[in-house]
């Protein structure tokens, strides 16, 4: 559809100008991201606590995770972050088609991440590396092996949930990009979605080494 058909953005009634609106929304997003970081951070602190408490469990659990799949997922997330940033950049150029292309790309990379996760989970289930009493993995000498996998499922599961939320935001941006005209002075939704996706990257950049490499 032609860019002229798109509606111009109106500053909300309680703001004085675009700048104030943009800054407020961005600061709001930042504070939300801050709380998300605290949540994941606490989870990671818990992980390090367990690593201190049961180093043997981590030492034996870690090799059961395939670092290649982890690395592949890292690649997917980083690329998704890159395309999200490009989407924002094109929004500033108000190039609707390029915006949509990049958003779709990011969506695909997010989807790829989830696919790989599913493969990993399937394998774990198949080998009985389940959390808690359901655990029946073979070849462990650490009595706490199940704790490692319990922690693995909780942390990666929660992260995967956030990947889903991030993809939801992308879809929302796609829908918006068909209605609203993104310009250099209004591209807030894509900017915010980009920040959120960067958060998802950030968390993974700590989870990946903690679970797949260190241990």
């Amino acid at each position, binding site marked *: 559809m032609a860019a002229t058909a798109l509606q111009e953005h109106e500053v909300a009634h309680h703001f004085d100008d675009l700048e104030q609106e943009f800054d407020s929304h961005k600061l709001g997003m930042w*504070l939300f991201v801050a709380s998300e970081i605290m949540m994941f951070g*606490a989870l990671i602190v818990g992980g390090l606590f367990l690593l201190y408490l049961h180093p043997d469990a981590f030492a034996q659990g870690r090799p059961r995770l395939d670092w290649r799949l982890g690395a592949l997922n890292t690649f997917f997330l980083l690329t998704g972050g890159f395309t999200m940033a490009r989407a924002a950049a094109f929004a500033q150029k108000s190039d609707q088609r390029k915006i949509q292309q990049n958003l779709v790309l990011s969506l695909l990379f997010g989807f790829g991440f989830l696919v790989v996760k599913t493969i990993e989970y399937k394998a774990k289930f198949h080998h009985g590396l389940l959390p808690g009493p359901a655990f029946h993995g073979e070849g462990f000498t650490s009595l706490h092996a199940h704790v490692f996998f319990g922690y693995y499922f909780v942390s990666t599961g929660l992260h995967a949930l956030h990947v889903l939320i991030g993809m939801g935001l992308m879809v929302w941006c796609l829908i918006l990009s068909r209605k609203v005209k993104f310009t250099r002075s209004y591209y807030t939704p894509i900017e915010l979605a980009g920040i959120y996706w960067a958060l998802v990257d950030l968390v993974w950049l700590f989870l990946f080494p903690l679970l797949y490499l260190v241990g």
Partner: protein
Amino acid sequence: MIAHVHDNNINYIKTKTGLLSWFVTKDHKRINMMFLISVLIFFITGGIYALLFRLELWTPGTHPLITPDTYNHYFTMHGVIMVFLVVVPGIPSALGNFVLPIQVGAKDLALPKINLTSLYLYWIGGILAIVSLIAGNADSGWTFYAPYSISKNPAVLWMLTAAFFLGFSSILTGLNFIVTVHKMRAPGMTWFRLPLFVWALYATAIMQIFATPVLAITLLLLLIENFFHIGIFDPAMGGDPVLMQHFFWFYSHPAVYIIVVPAFGITSEIIAAFSKKEIFGYKFVAFSSIGITLIGFLVWGHHMFVSGQSEVANTVFSFLTFFTAIPSAIKVFNWTATLYKGSISLQTPMLYGLQILFNFTIGGLTGIILSILSLDVHLHDTYFVVSHFHYVAFGTTIIAFIAGIHYWWPKMTGKMYNEVWGRIASVIVFFGFNITFFPQLIMGSQGSPRRYYHYLPQYQIYHQISTVGVVILALGLVIALVNLLISLRMGATAPQNPWGAHTLEWEAAESPPVLFNFKETPIVTHGPYAFATEKT
């Protein structure tokens, strides 16, 4: 979203009519009123639970009507409702929501939709709490200590979920406040022209944003432990219950300050307004709020002095805990000094304000004694602790909440309540509260443990005084509430500035305020307590 054209000359209550217009509103004032009603309803509920188990404690031994399980259920419901549904959201969401944007001279909070979301999350939490009530006996205590809380009691599961949602409601409110204070201040509203209530809410918001997520993850892990026993908290699976306490208190100690710091803000406003005097040491009071916030993140371990935490950690936490005493002391001293050479009028809000000084002095002093390591070992988990945190959470926060309701009532509703009955109620509340909780200090010092359905006969006298006190307290609260409600029907119309205060909501906004708070954006030229400008 185009600003729907409203007449900005009629007040916010009348701008739109119909119940629906309230449920979809983005106006911070309407959202605040809905918060206020919900919080008061839950406050009454929690109070009824307290009454019930205080009556049970009239005599030791078993009771035909209230079994031990019922008792455990009652004190759990009292705790969860009062903490997560009343005192934590109470002042920020149900007073600050209304007052903060007006005090900084904004048309609305920065993120009105987020504000409405916060209200709906609060309602979801409340409904889940009620569901848990139907689901059975939630008996884990509000602290949800593992492994007792992971015994798959359905009511506890619902309660955990409820607290989870309430946490997010709290986060969103705090987020909104910080953005508003940073980005929405009126021209001329510099940082040091902000009223101390705004400073307090700002400090609170920091804690809401940085501490509450840890509660969320704690509750999440508890729920997961309930179903999968992954062995992070569950000792039967090789987990560590003390780690759960670390997680819980890393939120719940800042939560104590989330509860009490806004109360400090209200106290500052009221003390200044009713002694017609610039607050003494404005900057000290302002920064002490921030100071309490930052220290508040370093001292959670003092809840765990006997919980099997290592002696080294105990010592460190005890050391840091003593520093929280300093900002609190600074506040009390500054309030006292503000009274000096003032023109003090003992109207209802001020009577409550002075009670806060009295109660918080006791609450603070009893707090310091609990951070003395060797003494805490004796006093830990006794009625002394119960009394201490009620002196803070009720004697300071709830009283400040009531004081704030009385103080801003004319602004919120446009009606004046009956002053005489207001004062009577406040005096009754004062005596009721202290009769209820002072005996518990003595009982605790003699070693009477908390959360006890049955107790040694020698404690009966204190329990009975306490129960008498709680009835008096309830009476006072009922009088206050009825007085306010009556004023809605037959109260006199409130003038714009009944107390002669100098903050924006009194100087620049009508009572009740118009839809966008001000006819035109105010230009701020003086500080919040410019009583020096007054001439007779």
